[in-house]
């Protein structure tokens, strides 16, 4: 059983960057009046000369980051995912991806983290738009431990990355950061099984694990793939799942259009068609509530997964 975690992923990013900046003076953190919401105030305090505040100006923050990168810096932009991925998408496309600058874009408070604040503050299309841009890597870490490993990987990776995290602490999926074999573009099989495969990313990984564990107790062994990198997608892991299990259920804190489910379906439909279910937020402004309430409402839940697994097993 996992312990209750009180450390948000954003704090882990800050800790990791503070550690690394001690020896790497090229790391630059940029915030758009978001140092508090990104939990980056400790970095700004520790390394003021490696911190750039742009005010509430998402287009400008991405352009400035690209300029810094073109002059050899390693910029990390931390800004709410809803604004960063939409207001600045042209800068992301041209200044980061097309110009091939080494900019790391951290979309904070992603998905429905701001559940009660309405559609303006939800980022439920960000995966769809970022993964359609050539040259951009898209990552959603599952918990604080994976966030640490992902942040370390970003520091080693040359090129543009969009990494989305949620606002609140999430329950652990891993026991420690050291226990994770994190590699960009390589899915992690967290549960073995040949009944149905659950593919999740970000905060839905914990839900997939809970569902798999509940089903395992009933004698149904579901495979769980943590697809932390949505682009480039680990097509091999998807195709193995398509061949070896009765079907695939994707779980995402994102619109059902264009996100993880679509990415998996694109691979499956071309090479190994199998029954699939895409679970996410339907094509509507999401209802008001906490992340937990919204997950429950939209079926990102153990109960719904159990039913969908039963469906797929009947179709086998």
């Amino acid at each position, binding site marked *: 059983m996992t312990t209750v975690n009180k450390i948000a992923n954003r704090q882990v990013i800050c800790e990791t960057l503070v550690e690394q900046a001690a020896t790497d003076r090229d790391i*630059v953190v940029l915030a758009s009046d978001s140092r508090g919401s990104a939990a980056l105030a400790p970095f700004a305090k520790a390394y003021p*000369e*490696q911190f*750039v505040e*742009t*005010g509430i*100006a998402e*287009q*400008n923050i*991405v*352009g*400035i*980051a*690209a*300029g*810094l*990168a*073109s*002059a*050899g*810096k390693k*910029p990390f932009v931390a800004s709410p995912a809803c604004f960063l991925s939409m207001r600045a998408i*042209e*800068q992301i*496309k*041209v*200044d980061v991806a*097309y*110009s*091939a*600058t080494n900019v790391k874009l951290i979309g904070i408070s992603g998905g429905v983290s701001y559940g009660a604040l309405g559609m303006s503050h939800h980022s439920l299309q960000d995966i769809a738009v970022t993964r359609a841009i050539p040259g951009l890597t898209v990552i959603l870490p599952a918990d604080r431990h994976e966030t640490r490993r992902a942040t370390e990987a970003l520091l080693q990776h040359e090129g543009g990355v969009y990494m989305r995290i949620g606002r609140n602490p999430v329950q652990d999926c891993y026991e420690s950061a050291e226990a994770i074999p994190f590699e960009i573009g390589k899915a992690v099989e967290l549960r073995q099984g040949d009944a149905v495969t659950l593919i999740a990313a970000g905060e839905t990984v914990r839900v997939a694990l809970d569902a798999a564990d509940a089903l395992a107790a009933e004698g149904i062994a579901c495979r769980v793939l943590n697809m932390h990198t949505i682009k480039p997608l680990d097509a091999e892991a998807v195709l193995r799942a398509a061949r070896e299990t009765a079907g695939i259920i994707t779980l995402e804190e994102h619109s059902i259009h264009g996100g993880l489910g679509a990415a998996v379906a694109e691979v499956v439909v071309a090479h190994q068609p199998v029954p699939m279910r895409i679970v996410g937020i339907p094509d509507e402004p999401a209802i008001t509530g906490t992340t937990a309430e919204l997950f429950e409402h939209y079926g990102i839940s153990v109960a719904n997964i159990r039913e969908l697994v039963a469906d797929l097993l009947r179709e086998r």
Partner: protein
Amino acid sequence: METHELKRKAAQIRMDLLKMIHGAKTGHTGGSLSNTDILTVLYYSMMKVDPQQPKWPDRDRFIASKGHSVESLYCILADKGFFPKEELATFSRFGSRLIGHPNNKVPGIEMNTGALGHGLSVSVGIALAGRMDGRDYRTYTLMGDGELAEGSVWEAAMAAAHYKLDTLVGIVDRNRLQISGSTEDVMALEPLRGKWESFGWTVHEVDGNDTAALETLLRQLPTVPGKPSLIIANTVKGKGVSFAENVPHWHHHVPSDDELALALAELAKEAGETL
């Protein structure tokens, strides 16, 4: 380079770019002609660049925020030896790296531009990096006047003043024309000087087709330490080709065979007269 040589060089670059656009049957002719004098002064008189080491860390930077007038830039980079001049014939052709907007796979080009309103933000980042690393390079950004309707320009203008980036020089190619007509009819920019001054910049106006005046001004910058410099370069769209000057459709008009011959004759005279 001596002043009369700059004028001659500008005429040669105009001839090169007209031939290139004519050959490719596409290009942004008017804007490239209007900014040729500015680029000529930057690349032949002001900027520390090394064609043998395009990524030299101490180089001065040029960002073509008005990326659509890339033709003059390609011609200058080829002339300086960043890449072979023969490659200009591939401009806009299938598979060419000489795309119709700046492409940083071409040696000497820093960033891919073309979407307007991006260049000044990028330049702020480059200038900040220079300060962090203790390098004294200059960052020059050329913007179109029509481009200034993009809000992101003003986000960057605010940041440049906030961070006191006096190594940054913004140049507005003030040719007063955009694709639909006069800038003042499409979306009025005046009072333009007042706008930049109120954003914390030191503003200078100059005849942007006068290479000597441009050179004199650029050498004085920054006139106020701690402030970014903005040059309103009053230019004539289509400059150097009498029948293209101030004619809006020359924005991306491709010269016919006859027009090319006439234009080259005019420019050859210009290049010759100033020898």
